[in-house]
């Protein structure tokens, strides 16, 4: 089945390791990525919730923004309080378009290079070329963007992540959720943040490409660590109520509708100087017309992205944007948008499924409580 496009599929530095572990490789955002290993999605999901899972997220885009005042500069593109970040602290934020739609969601960490502040950015794989072009075009002259093609990104997630990683770098114990630090891991300088996309405690580790496979093998040699593919990454983030870009959020959704109001910084609401501030602040004041909510279908049949949501009176009120099976919940889980008038927790709904409907209940997100190590 070799086609011309197969030869253009990019590989992460862990490609050979994935293959040797028996992963099923699928094309994702232009990369050959492991969707699952022989253990299977449910086992990988459960290993992450109960012990630790290792994820290759090297396909994501990493970059450093430098300049006289990179934080102030970057605030022109996002609604987050970036200037207020202390060194080695990170924040989830959003690249917005001029109407307040979401171009991408990303992590921003304020780092220091020889005493000079810079921003470390991690963006979605599918958006990275467009994001970096946008950032460079908008901020060119005031800041310089260096794309880190030579760095891999590993995520170690789960309740045992700290115990495992501290065997290599005891300093990781000192990090709290959304904090980073440079550490030597298996002989290589890596930038480690206490963050992730599973709802569990854990770390993301940025390190040079040529050291990635060695660190991955060292971590996988630990009894408490299993390799985890994109399939379980999706079920973990869905249970954690986290948005998947291109599905739960996109250029047609606003941060307010998406329930990401907390990502619009307090100071930024007053200065109103981010893209789309007019419409976003209006929604903040008047309330959005629709809201992202959790959906718990009755029975065992998963509902999927695109399924129409109706109220008890059979009136169409929204659409499913992510849906599947939640292994920790033990049944189907979904999220989607419904009109604000119907967005009350406990509301009985019907979701279309293959020409019939499945009863469902509107619930709070997340489905599984977050297990972060927050600053006490």
């Amino acid at each position, binding site marked *: 089945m070799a086609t011309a496009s197969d030869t253009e599929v990019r590989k992460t530095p862990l490609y050979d390791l994935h293959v040797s572990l028996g992963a099923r490789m699928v094309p994702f955002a232009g990369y050959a990525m492991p969707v699952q290993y022989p253990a299977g999605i449910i086992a990988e999901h459960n290993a992450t919730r109960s012990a630790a899972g290792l994820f290759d997220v090297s396909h994501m885009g990493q970059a450093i923004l430098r300049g006289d005042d990179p934080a102030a500069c970057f605030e022109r593109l996002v609604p987050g309080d970036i200037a207020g970040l202390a060194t080695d602290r990170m924040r989830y934020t959003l690249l917005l378009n001029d109407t307040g739609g979401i171009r991408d969601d990303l992590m921003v960490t304020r780092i220091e290079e020889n005493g000079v502040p810079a921003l470390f950015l991690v963006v979605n794989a599918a958006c990275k070329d467009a994001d970096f072009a946008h950032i460079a075009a908008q901020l060119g002259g005031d800041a310089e963007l260096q794309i880190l093609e030579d760095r891999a990104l590993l995520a170690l997630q789960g309740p045992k992540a700290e115990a495992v990683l501290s065997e290599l770098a005891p300093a990781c114990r000192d990090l709290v959720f959304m904090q980073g630090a440079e550490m030597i891991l298996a002989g290589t300088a890596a930038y480690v943040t206490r963050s992730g996309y599973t709802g569990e405690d854990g770390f993301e580790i940025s390190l040079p490409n040529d050291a990635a496979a060695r660190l991955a093998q060292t971590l996988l040699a630990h009894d408490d660590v299993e390799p985890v593919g994109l399939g379980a990454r999706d079920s973990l983030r869905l249970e954690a109520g986290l948005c998947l870009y291109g599905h739960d959020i996109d250029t047609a959704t606003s941060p307010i509708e998406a329930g990401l109001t907390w990502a619009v910084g307090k100071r930024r609401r007053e200065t109103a100087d981010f893209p789309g501030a007019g419409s976003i602040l209006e929604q903040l004041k008047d309330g959005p017309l629709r809201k992202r909510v959790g959906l718990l279908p009755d029975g065992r049949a998963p509902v999927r992205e695109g399924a129409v949501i109706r109220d008890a009176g059979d009136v169409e009120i929204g659409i499913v944007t992510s849906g599947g*099976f939640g292994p920790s919940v033990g049944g189907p889980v979904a999220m989607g948008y419904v009109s604000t008038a119907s967005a009350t927790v406990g509301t009985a709904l019907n979701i279309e499924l293959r020409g019939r409907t499945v009863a469902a209940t509107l619930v709070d997100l997340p489905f599984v409580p977050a297990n972060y190590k927050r600053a006490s």
Partner: protein
Amino acid sequence: MANRKYSEDHEWVEVEGETGMIGISDYAQEQLGDVVFVELPDVGKLLDRTDEVAVVESVKAAAEVYAPVGGEVIEVNDALNGDPSLVNTDAFGDGWFAKLRLTDPAELDDLMDEATYKTYCEGLD
């Protein structure tokens, strides 16, 4: 096992008299991954060959299962409602989907035998 036949869509049918028991192959369950739900047909439903007989939901996606031969559904595997993972653990046994009373046994001639199917799957990898 000698009378088990396969479709190109990875369904199997095992014939005993006028009855054909159907399911999906080991290759298919492996491609799907963990099965979390199987939507089975109603007993009494009349199916033409290639009509949708069931839907298999894995963690990631839904896949349609087509009848490899035509017939009337006379029994479904209710055990899959309680434990859909039987499709993964025993695709050719306890993970069966339905039994059909065959409309036209001659349709079986268009399906692959074990050896041909095995070669067919090898060509897909």
